[in-house]
């Protein structure tokens, strides 16, 4: 209660200062704990104001129209995308969702509105790690950024064909957050060769530097913070559930997966360990969904037996249990790497890992002036040394905030104006 009072008071002062001096509001962020910052929604008073509705068109693309979708995925009918359009000529910005997220998760919708408000047509694309993408648009096993970028590029091409008759476009832009930002960097590199879009600017929001390090750090949050270790997971989750029910008396079924889980976090009386574990759990569940789907789509052998046909009534419970015990790094080491090695026998694990890292694009990122970066010093997906590296690579095109966790501050007015400035090419100091 005291904390809320303190926040309210501070808010008052903040409200008063802009009138006193016309300078932009200083960056103030209420959560100093990075786990809280990541999980808790920014209080409404701190958020940029967004339009309630923007003109929207939803459509479906099918990169592989002849693909036989297994009956177990009976609900998959193409990859949905959405376009928020302007009624006049404007730049078109492709926005790539983060790990395990669809084009229409709340964060994507808000970002779409914020950037539409800034004058862009905004076309939202599902992450290559989401099952909808894996079923409809992945050409093989997902998880290697360079190849995921090719799949993304194909989807972007088709999406552009779909909307080009309806909107007037001046230039192309690209942005993404978290894993979506990592993907965007690789898509931009690919575009340098293919030149379909010739992106004017590319904005990276809170990307990992090394994908492997980041997913490991995230998964470790789960493993380290469940009291008594993963063997006690059920008991721990039961307690969390009871505690949450106690507060709200209602649990939405949508709350057990992906980004929607964040809405549940904020109802918890946050203990740091629980918040950290829940962040890790979300990451683990996203990975499990992707790994199982990818395995089914590629003939099985990892989690499902080879040569079985899963139908709409097949029980998936045992596969689910196995999948949730599978970390992304298990998938990488046991399945993805051997798969790549089959196609290029000389490939070492180290060499494949090196391709999962922004260092791999070092020269390109340093040399190209089209990139902008927004990040937080306390982002939980980074490991020591990452921030220094990002500053070095992006120089004055990087805005690093002192706090905000993993994207907790995304809709802070100061962060949103940074986005717009970096996209428009104004490299003014923070």
């Amino acid at each position, binding site marked *: 209660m005291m904390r809320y009072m303190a926040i309210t008071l501070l808010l008052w002062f903040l409200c008063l200062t802009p009138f006193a001096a016309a300078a932009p509001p200083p960056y103030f962020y209420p959560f100093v704990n990075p786990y809280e910052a990541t999980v808790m929604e920014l209080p409404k008073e701190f958020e940029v104001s967004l339009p309630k509705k923007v003109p929207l068109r939803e459509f479906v693309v099918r990169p592989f129209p002849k693909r036989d979708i297994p009956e177990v995925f009976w609900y998959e009918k193409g990859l949905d995308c959405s376009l928020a359009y302007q009624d006049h000529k404007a730049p078109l910005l492709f926005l790539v969702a983060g790990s395990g997220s669809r084009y229409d998760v709340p964060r994507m919708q808000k970002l779409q509105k914020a950037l539409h408000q800034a004058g862009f047509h905004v076309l939202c694309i599902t992450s290559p790690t989401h099952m909808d993408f894996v079923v409809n648009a992945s050409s093989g096993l997902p998880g290697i950024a360079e190849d995921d970028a090719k799949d993304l590029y194909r989807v972007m091409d088709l999406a552009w064909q779909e909307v080009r008759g309806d909107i007037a476009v001046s230039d192309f832009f690209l942005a993404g957050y978290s894993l979506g930002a990592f993907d965007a960097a690789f898509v931009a590199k690919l575009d340098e060769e293919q030149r379909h879009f010739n992106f004017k600017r590319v904005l990276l929001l809170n990307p990992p530097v090394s994908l492997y390090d980041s997913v490991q750090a995230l998964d470790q949050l789960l493993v380290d913070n469940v009291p008594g270790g993963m063997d006690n997971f059920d008991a721990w989750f039961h307690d969390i559930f009871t505690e949450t029910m106690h507060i709200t008396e209602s649990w939405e079924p*949508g709350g057990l997966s992906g980004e929607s889980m964040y809405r549940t976090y904020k109802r918890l009386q946050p203990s740091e360990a629980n918040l950290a574990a829940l962040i890790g759990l979300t990451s683990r569940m996203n990975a499990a969904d992707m790994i199982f789907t990818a395995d089914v789509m590629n003939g099985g052998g990892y989690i499902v037996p080879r*040569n079985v046909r899963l139908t709409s*009534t*097949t029980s998936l419970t045992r596969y689910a249990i196995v999948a949730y*015990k599978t970390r992304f790094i298990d998938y990488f080491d046991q399945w993805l790497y051997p798969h790549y090695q089959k196609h290029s026998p000389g490939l070492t694990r180290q060499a494949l890992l090196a391709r999962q890292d922004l260092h791999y694009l070092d020269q390109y990122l340093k040399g190209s002036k089209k990139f902008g970066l927004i990040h937080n010093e306390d982002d939980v997906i980074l490991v020591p040394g990452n921030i220094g590296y990002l500053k070095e690579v992006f120089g004055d095109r990087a805005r690093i905030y002192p706090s905000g966790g993993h994207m907790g501050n995304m809709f802070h007015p100061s962060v949103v104006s940074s986005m717009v400035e970096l996209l428009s090419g104004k490299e003014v100091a923070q």
Partner: protein
Amino acid sequence: MKTRCGATVLIAGAVLALALESGCSTLPQAGPGPVEPPLRKYEDLVKPGTHNMLDVKDSVEGFNRGSYRFNYYFDEYLYRPVVRGYEIIMPNYLEDRVSNAIDNLNEITNLTNNLFQFKFKAAGVTLGRFLINSTVGVAGLWDPATTWGLERKTQDFGLTLGHYGTGDGSYLMLPVLGASNVRDTGGFAADTATFVYAGPIAWANSSTFTTAYTGVNALDRRHRIPFRYRQTGSPFEYELLRTLYTMKREYDVQQGKGKGKD
């Protein structure tokens, strides 16, 4: 009465069709070549005898999964569009009045079940709420009772059975109605019977009222549930929903026991 019979026949027909179509087999079918075990096997990763929260008793899983699929289509192409129409026509303020009125009529369920569990204080509160909201609250359109400190004491016959130690039997995904289990389905049937033969439907004794109530109740029920099928974006949504429902009902039963007979 006639319409109700018609609806029952229709639902029974749909259930039968589902059962036949689904064939009730939950085992994977053989593909073109020899079946090879996967690299990550359940047997290697799960110690025998350990319980996983995704393991919920589900004796008719084939039927349930067929029913889950049916519900997805029903919800996506009929139920939600109709409810969306209702939401567009009705101002939010009126929607809330309808919800209140429905809740008020359903106090009969809360009353009987609180009595069955010998929770006389809660039963008294429920009766008080019904009297206040039906009069001061104008046929339940408003809920002054809550403002005056009389909180709703939600109960149903499934919880009553749970209170007396009945296990949940087995998970059931009911066509149209959604997630349930054997105990709660029985409870739902009992509560519905009470409502129809000893509750508001019997009091009103008018087919117009019955039809109107049934329709409005269906709209209001869906209007108030934010859930959408496939919203989780997970291939294991069926499992997640099953676990969540089971945990939620277990919690409700335990809560009821914890509060004792006050």
